[in-house]
């Protein structure tokens, strides 16, 4: 039997609502529903098949396609390749205010240390009150080297300093923390471009908040256009986030999610797998 157009519309509408309720941005949800519609139109269903279940399976497939569309990025592999050329890998983290950049850097430092890599942190948030001190506390607790200057110093200069230090002392990875910034702020986006130009990073990492709604598309698109994104990290997934932002960001950038932040502790960082998003999203 074939689904009638009106039955299909009803099923698609329900799926669209659940996508939107899971924080998949409106245009991304539209795209997903269109793909499901194309796959289901004219499709014959077995007598025993539940059309709703079939549609959900097709939707899951469409979501997986988006999440796996980007080229694969293996962070450890990127580091290894750079180290083989006797150079430290440079990772620069950016995103809007309060998404979890500084905390993520601390978690990643621990993650890398546990894999035998020596890490240097660059305190390139030279603007925000307590920006340097926050990273300093994490560095001390983890026994990680930190390169800093005073508040108000040039962010790119601090990062460059950290990279020189890493090269001189044989450190394998440099993690560059930057100040939060709205993607609409001209001057701050210029500064970010300067940091990237000066540090020539191996990975430009966008850090987003999993609780963000439709703005995730705006942030990801503009940072990608203005700075370039090689991969993203989505924090605060433990806050009952449905993870729609992961789809929005991946769809807009074509680059993969590398990790998910799942708490405030140093251990709360997990390597990204589509299942981690697909499960809560379709709940």
């Amino acid at each position, binding site marked *: 039997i074939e689904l009638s157009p009106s039955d299909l519309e009803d099923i698609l509408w329900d799926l669209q609502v659940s996508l939107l309720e899971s924080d998949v941005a409106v245009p991304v949800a539209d795209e997903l529903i269109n793909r499901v519609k194309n796959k289901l139109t004219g499709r014959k269903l077995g007598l025993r098949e539940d059309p709703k279940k079939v549609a959900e399976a097709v939707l899951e497939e469409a979501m997986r396609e988006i999440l796996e569309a980007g080229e694969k990025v293996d962070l450890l592999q990127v580091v290894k390749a750079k180290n083989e050329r006797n150079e430290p890998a440079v990772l620069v983290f950016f995103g809007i205010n*309060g998404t979890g950049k500084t905390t993520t850097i601390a978690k990643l430092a621990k993650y890398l240390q546990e894999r035998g890599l020596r890490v240097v942190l660059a305190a390139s948030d030279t603007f925000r009150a307590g920006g340097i001190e926050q*990273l300093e506390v994490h560095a001390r607790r983890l026994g990680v080297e930190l390169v800093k200057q005073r508040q108000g110093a040039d962010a790119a200069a601090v990062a460059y300093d950290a990279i020189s230090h890493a090269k001189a002392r044989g450190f394998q990875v440099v993690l560059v923390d930057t100040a939060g910034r709205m993607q609409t702020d001209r001057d701050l986006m210029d500064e970010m471009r300067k940091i990237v130009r000066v540090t020539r990073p191996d990975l430009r990492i966008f850090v987003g908040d999993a609780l963000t*709604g439709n*703005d995730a598309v705006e*942030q990801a698109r503009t940072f990608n256009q203005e700075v370039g994104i090689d991969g993203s990290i989505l924090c605060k997934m433990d*806050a009952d986030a449905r993870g729609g932002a992961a789809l929005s960001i991946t769809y807009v950038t074509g680059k993969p999610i590398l990790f998910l932040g799942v708490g405030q502790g140093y251990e709360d960082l997990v390597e990204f797998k589509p299942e981690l998003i697909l499960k809560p999203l379709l709940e």
Partner: protein
Amino acid sequence: KLGKALHGALQKLARAPHVDEETVRELVRDLQRALLQADVNVQLVLDLTRRLEERLRKESPPPGMSRREHAVKLVYEELSGLLGKPSSFELKKGAPTVVLMVGLQGSGKTTSVAKLAYHFRKRGLRVGVVCADTFRAGAYEQLSQLGQRAGVEVWGEPGADDPVALARRGVEELGRRCDLVLVDSAGRHKEEKGLMEEMRRMAEAIGPDEVMLVVDGTLGQQARDQAEAFRKVTPLGSILVTKLDGTAKGGGALSAVAATGAPIKFIGTGEHLEDLEPFSPPRFMARLLG
């Protein structure tokens, strides 16, 4: 004054040869899309647009009002209904006013505490702030630097591990010489049961005149459930929406108001101390609608 998206939708209505089912449905669909892209809670949007469609169909414009003007009026009524009664921040007479700031991680509490302190200090009040966030690395340094810039006294106990006792001590001490005491607390979300309980104990210990929920302007569909969870732990006096200087429309905040009944009193529009504005419903709505 209306947002672009709604303006466009109403233009279509105005140009339509007659207002029929299809025109109304199209207006409602456009409005729905605008509200969803603004992060307003999905169920809220569906309920609102269902009600609106019904009213547009049933109610005829009063004499002298065009079909289009009537539609605008109904849309505005329905949306303002979501915002609840406008309400401004009230200071207590004869005793220090104590405000406890709570909210999700990274929403902008610490920065907003400093902005509020600066705002009221400029108006001649003696303001003190308490750093009751004993968890976050560098929390005291952050508030201390901001407080200094704002010209207010900062109470903090770096190294202390009981935030509730610290909050009580800070409020008691600053209350002796301040008209307004603002208490900054650690970020928390509804799944962190221990932290939600800590917030309950903190409110109980300091007896605030107002508990202000700080909501990130970029917050999506989780706004409603998170705000509700906060309200269940402690009554909320008001909401402060941050980061509206970016591209986010703040629909999440609207959902938080609808879920808690707490009015929005201030908005944050940047990282500097001056970037605080008292809430203006028409401006917020215009931004929300595109």
